[in-house]
């Protein structure tokens, strides 16, 4: 079959089955973006963000041979909850998503390669979804691995008591919600940073404002707290952290939401922001010198 016939055949196929075309385009986009963004030296700092607690826990296990009594398990469970809820959800995943998702489009503008994405027969909405999924896969892969590693290192030091806690106690029941919340954190923050990167030439400042908002939101009324990612993540977590510090005085306790509402709420937030990104992408023009 000649090349012209191939082109004509592909054209016919895409007219008849556009959704199959979109799916195949998203697969190609995800594959290319994952290769481009996961296995690169530029992402070493993201690996470090994910691995810092893992390395600390590993060091703790190797060098601190005391406190291995089974009675310590509850204390360490709270420490693990602190690592996941205070470090990963508020800082690690937040900054990693800022790096990964803002770079999906801004990075291509900096490298002057975005025009290649705009000169192929791909709807810009498909481009946004493909890039978002790639970012989500990268961040979820990294942070799920990190959270599972933290979980393993927390309980492995207790030997058989730790094994019992994981498999016969509440252990695995806690890991599931942590993994779910980690994935949702990546999706929620990812969608927000993708939109910010399309809205602002330098998304660092609005990113810092978002971090500030996520941090101080607990002192605002319950309805305002629902406009944060951490609000939903907090209700997904199986271990409640005790409030402490000066912020605790001003904290407005919002009524917790059910698991279903938390998951659906975060997904709705991510989808809404993604839809916004699909509109914003149409504003982007290739004028590298003006960036």
């Amino acid at each position: 079959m000649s090349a012209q016939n191939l082109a004509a055949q592909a054209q016919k196929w895409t007219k008849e089955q556009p959704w199959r075309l979109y799916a195949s385009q998203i697969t190609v986009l995800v594959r290319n973006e994952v290769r481009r963004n996961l296995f690169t030296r530029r992402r070493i700092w993201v690996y470090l963000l994910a691995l810092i607690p893992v390395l600390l826990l590993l060091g703790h296990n190797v060098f601190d041979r005391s406190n291995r009594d089974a009675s310590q398990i509850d204390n360490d469970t709270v420490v693990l909850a602190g690592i996941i809820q205070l470090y990963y959800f508020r800082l690690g995943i937040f900054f990693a998503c800022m790096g990964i998702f803002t770079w999906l489009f801004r990075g291509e503008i900096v490298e002057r390669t975005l025009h290649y994405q705009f000169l192929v027969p791909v709807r810009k909405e498909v481009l946004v979804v493909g890039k978002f999924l790639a970012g989500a896969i990268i961040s979820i892969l990294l942070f799920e691995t990190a959270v599972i590693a933290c979980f393993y290192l927390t309980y492995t030091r207790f030997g058989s008591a730790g094994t019992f806690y994981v498999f016969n106690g509440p252990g695995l029941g806690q890991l599931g919600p942590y993994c779910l919340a980690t994935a949702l954190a990546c999706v929620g923050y990812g969608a927000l940073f993708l939109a910010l990167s399309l809205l602002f030439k330098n998304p660092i400042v609005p990113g810092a404002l978002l971090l500030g908002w996520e941090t101080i939101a607990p002192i605002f009324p319950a309805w305002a707290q629902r406009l944060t990612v951490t609000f939903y993540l907090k209700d997904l977590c199986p271990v409640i952290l005790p409030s402490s510090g000066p912020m605790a005085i001003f904290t407005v306790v919002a009524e917790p939401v059910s698991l279903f509402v938390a998951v659906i709420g975060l997904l709705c937030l991510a989808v809404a922001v993604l839809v916004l990104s699909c509109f914003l992408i149409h504003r982007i023009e290739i004028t590298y010198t003006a960036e």
Partner: protein
Amino acid sequence: MTPGARQIVFENVSKFYGEVLGVNKVSFSLEPGITSLVGPNGSGKTTLMNLLTGLIKPSHGSIHVLGLTTRQPVEFFRQVGYCTQFDSFPPGTNGYDFIYWPLRLHGFAHDQAAKLTNEALERAGMAQVARRKVAGYSKGMRQRIRLAQAIAHHPSVLVLDEPLNGLDPMARAESIALFQAIAKQGMHVIISSHILEEVDRISDRVVLMSSGYVVAEGQIREVRREVRDHPMQILVRCSNAAKLASAAFELDHVVEAKILTDGQSVLVRTRDSEQFYLLLNKIVSAGLLDVDAVAPADDDVNSIYQYLIGSDGGPA
């Protein structure tokens, strides 16, 4: 105006970057064939190409390519290939992947995409180095691999921004032959180039631009005829140059008839070339002299460029 299904149509297109003018009130329609955009730096050639391919959006007006707009990207970019001037590539890519993966985005299956990739690499003369990283390519090779990507999916409209830059004479000749072959298949080839001799040789028509405006547009001879401020120059080599010069002087529209140093050639400058050719026919028919050669001396892009834009046709 109804945008034609075979035409590229610009309707009153303007583009402003803030307060800076990119192009202003551009209206024309192009038929299939090779069209060259010619003009000095900053005249708006690249802006026009970026507008055509949707990389930037017009502030006013509309653009239709074969009846399509960039709001139908799937259909539009099946028909259009654009080789930009941006000398940048996705990090770590090699020549083969640079062509193969965009073809997969076109919807081609692996085998089809591989076939088209190999064909494009062959056509651009890059098959031997396809598996090398693009970062290690010379400027000419980078130019050719971009060209290969632009032609890989067999577009009906090929847009090329300075495609001959950085190419050695052999590669330049091969590229020109490729453009001509594509144009012969009834496709559009739109080229911006500052190498006016080559533009002149290959173009079916030109669009002359200056400071964001289209100064002239059409077939080169038509455009030349429209430039009435500069009489046409016609070189005639004949058996009696003095007789021809004196006959030419009797015509009102002839402003100069100069006998050249070889004594057998006359350079005539006339405001009405058709009338002059009639005179020449009469003289020859009457057997007053023998004509060896007649050739227009300034109906080329370089001359038109000089007359309309005013520089020597240097780097545009």
